[in-house]
């Protein structure tokens, strides 16, 4: 648990509304604008992930750049098919990441197994069998622009998070999000 989470719990229990809100907005701003990614590129989607951070699409504009070390990153981008042999490695890398951490499932294989859903004896059908996924992007493979969209979607999700455990913050979404409560307040 990061120090800030302890702070959040303390502030929340003592009812420190204004301080909590300010710290929340600062934390969410910094976290959302600086999403360093761990490219977990296993298959075809990795090529589009590389393209997304290179010259034409340039993720760095949004403050997202790839770092291979799990300890230094905020979001793991699972790009490609995950097989049963690979699954423990993916899980371990996720565990090595420092909190707060997010996962983007890029491409049909990471979402559901995609073209290898049927008849395959070794494919994990979606990385959400292994990790909690925050944003799914469809496509086989998705275009680099979809990756940028995923980062923006994740920012919106981060904007609803609070450092107090179990709380959400009110946030006005750019697009209607199914299942998301835009009213804020206590989570279930």
């Amino acid at each position, binding site marked *: 648990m990061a120090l800030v989470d302890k702070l959040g719990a303390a502030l929340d229990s003592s009812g420190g509304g204004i301080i909590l809100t300010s710290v929340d907005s600062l934390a969410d701003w910094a976290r959302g604008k600086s999403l360093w990614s761990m490219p977990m590129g296993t298959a075809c989607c990795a090529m589009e992930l590389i393209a997304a951070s290179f010259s034409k699409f340039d993720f760095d504009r949004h403050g997202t750049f790839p770092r291979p070390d799990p300890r230094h990153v905020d979001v793991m981008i699972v790009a490609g098919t995950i097989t049963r042999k690979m699954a423990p490695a993916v899980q371990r890398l996720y565990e090595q990441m420092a909190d707060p951490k997010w996962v983007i499932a890029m491409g049909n294989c990471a979402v559901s197994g995609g073209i290898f*859903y049927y008849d395959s004896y*070794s494919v994990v059908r979606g990385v959400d069998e292994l990790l909690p996924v925050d944003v799914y992007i469809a496509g086989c493979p998705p275009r680099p622009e979809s990756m940028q969209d995923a980062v923006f979607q994740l920012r919106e999700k981060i904007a609803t998070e609070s450092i107090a455990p179990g709380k959400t913050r009110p946030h006005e979404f750019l697009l209607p999000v199914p299942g998301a409560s835009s009213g804020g307040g206590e989570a279930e």
Partner: protein
Amino acid sequence: MNINELREHLCGQYPDLCPLFSIEFGDGVLVVGCDKLHAAASDLKDLGFDRLGMLTAVDRDETFEMVYRLTSRSMSAGIFLKCHVPRENPITHSLNSLWPAANWQEREVYDLFGIVFKGHPDLRRILLPPEWVGHPLRKDYEDDRMVRRPDYI
């Protein structure tokens, strides 16, 4: 070199291999017994087939058909070498001593078909994890985690 010249060349050099030779889809095929496979491959290597292009197996119900594809750079030609391994006790000779290229490909066939290669230096699973049960490319392979595709075509 076209296929008929190849046949004549082969028959001239190795008369005992000649009756085993046939032509299928424009490719020369040589079907031998698995006990004579190593000798036949060695003969073909001397003949100029210096590359082992591909090595695989096909599940033919009763037997496993081993398929070797040899390529010759000097003749610009390819040839199939086939033998049948019994399903009950699938053991055959390794070609690792002739072509080191057989090393990984035989490990792959061992992994996916369960065919054991005598004389292989390092016969372990290669693609699947070591604790995997069964050999998936056999036609009778069953796996609970496998979802069969609905038959709508």
